């Protein structure tokens, strides 16, 4: 389990004239849960977008399972085994809950297995089962978030990236979501997690990176970061 599945070297990227990431290097080992924390605007989401190919990197290199994915478009990144649950839910508003879930399995074949996965998600989030025919755009914020998480799980990735999955979820659902994330990690899926709920994220992760102003300024085991004075002050409210 010591193999690096995801290796990122000196990645720089941005939007138009803005540079959002100023040279990021990070490694994610197989089967680990890696957390990425940082303040608003630090570049966490951009990092995930760069990995999944939504924002093309300007320089640097990315490898997944030894294969170069630098500059690959999202479908290829997904096909190579990386799923991305984006920030801000991003459900397809005029499609039903069920169709949204099916979109998550777009690249998969075999309707039987897909249906089984869908049912598993309905068991995890019974609320979604109640609303399976409702247009996703009319769901409440938290319901949409559950849907976004479920949809990302539908692709059965080997590496899954969550961008603030707890956003807008009720405490009991946050608990369940974190349990799910731990569960898939335990089942062998690698996880890259961006969370504002830094305490919870650091507590459950195997390794963590702290991002500030588009640079990685700190990394280590989750518990190490929790102990860190700067992290406590700036991110844990202590």
């Amino acid at each position, binding site marked *: 389990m010591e193999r690096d599945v995801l290796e990122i070297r000196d990645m720089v990227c941005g939007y138009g004239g803005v540079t959002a990431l100023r040279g990021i290097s990070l490694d994610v080992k197989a089967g680990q849960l890696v957390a990425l924390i940082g303040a608003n605007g630090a570049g966490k989401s951009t990092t995930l977008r760069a990995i*999944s*190919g*939504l924002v093309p990197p300007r320089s640097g290199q990315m490898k997944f399972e030894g294969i170069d994915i630098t500059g690959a*478009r*999202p*479908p290829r990144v*997904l*096909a190579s085994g990386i*799923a*991305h649950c*984006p920030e801000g839910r*991003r*459900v*397809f*508003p*005029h*499609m039903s809950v069920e*169709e949204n879930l*099916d*979109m*998550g399995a*777009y*690249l998969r074949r075999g309707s039987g297995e897909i249906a089984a996965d869908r049912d598993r998600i309905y068991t995890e989030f019974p609320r979604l089962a109640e609303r399976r025919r409702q*247009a996703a*755009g*009319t769901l409440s914020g938290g319901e949409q978030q559950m849907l976004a998480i479920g*949809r990302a799980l539908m*692709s059965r990735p080997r590496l899954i990236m969550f961008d603030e999955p707890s956003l807008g979820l009720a405490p009991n659902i946050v608990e369940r979501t974190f349990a799910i994330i731990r569960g898939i990690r335990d089942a062998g899926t690698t996880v890259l997690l961006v969370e504002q709920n830094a305490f919870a994220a650091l507590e459950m992760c195997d390794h963590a990176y702290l991002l500030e102003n588009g640079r990685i300024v700190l990394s280590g085991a989750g518990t190490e970061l929790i102990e860190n004075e700067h992290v406590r002050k700036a991110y844990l409210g202590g």
Partner: protein
Amino acid sequence: MSEFLQHLVNMLVLGGTYALLGIGLTLIFGIMNVVNFTHGVLYTFGAYIMFIVVQQLGLNFFLALPVAVLAGWLLGAAIELTLLRPLRGSDIDTTMLVMIGAWIAMQSGTLWIWGGVAKSVATPFPEAPLVLGPVSVSWLRLFVLAAAAMLILVTYLLINKTSLGRAMRATFQDHDTASLMGVNVDMIYTSTFAIGSSLAAAAGALLGPVYVIFPQMGDLAAVKAFAIVILGGLGNITGAVIGGFILALAEELGAGYVSSGYRDAMGFLIIIAVLIFRPTGLFARAERVG
């Protein structure tokens, strides 16, 4: 009474025509969000393909139809690749204007190549109409009605029941996220536009022989198509069909019982009235705030 029956039959035939005009546009305008001013040109294009294949090459009418559809598909794909793809992500008004430019240029090109004189296409259908009591209807138009119904059904199934259709809808609701789901959005853009275009060409190929074929024939068709698509709610195929029949009914009864000068006015008044009471078309999508 017999006049009324005849009007009703006309309405059915015309409504089918309108629905056919609407579905191609529902894809491109309703789902893809491109204000597609080339819809009318593609309609004209389909009709001219029929003219070339049937009248100039002397091939079979029924063989010409799929040729026209295919040609529409190709032209649509070409338009998307050359004109729309470079402007992906631009404002909807920018792409609209590019489509206006393409419309003007292509229509004039048609005029240049074929001249302004109207053409017509011979069909294998008998000239004598089908007479049922007090009403008569031409065989050709019955065929068009049947073909329209089939195309509408196929389109409906494609959009609502296939994974390609689902990917199309997803792409135009949020194309970044769709690509995260593994959708090849470039392919979807091109194929949606191409399918919509082939439907426009199909409408032209079917209706060209019913009417006559000339360079500006698509303009009126396009205006009606826009009205129908919006009346039925953007992207809603069932809505477009019902919208088509409502428009046909309004025009038919408007011309029959109000005044033929106000025939088209009736259609537009209905549109205004419907939108006053249902501001997002007959079949609005559910929306929420907050």
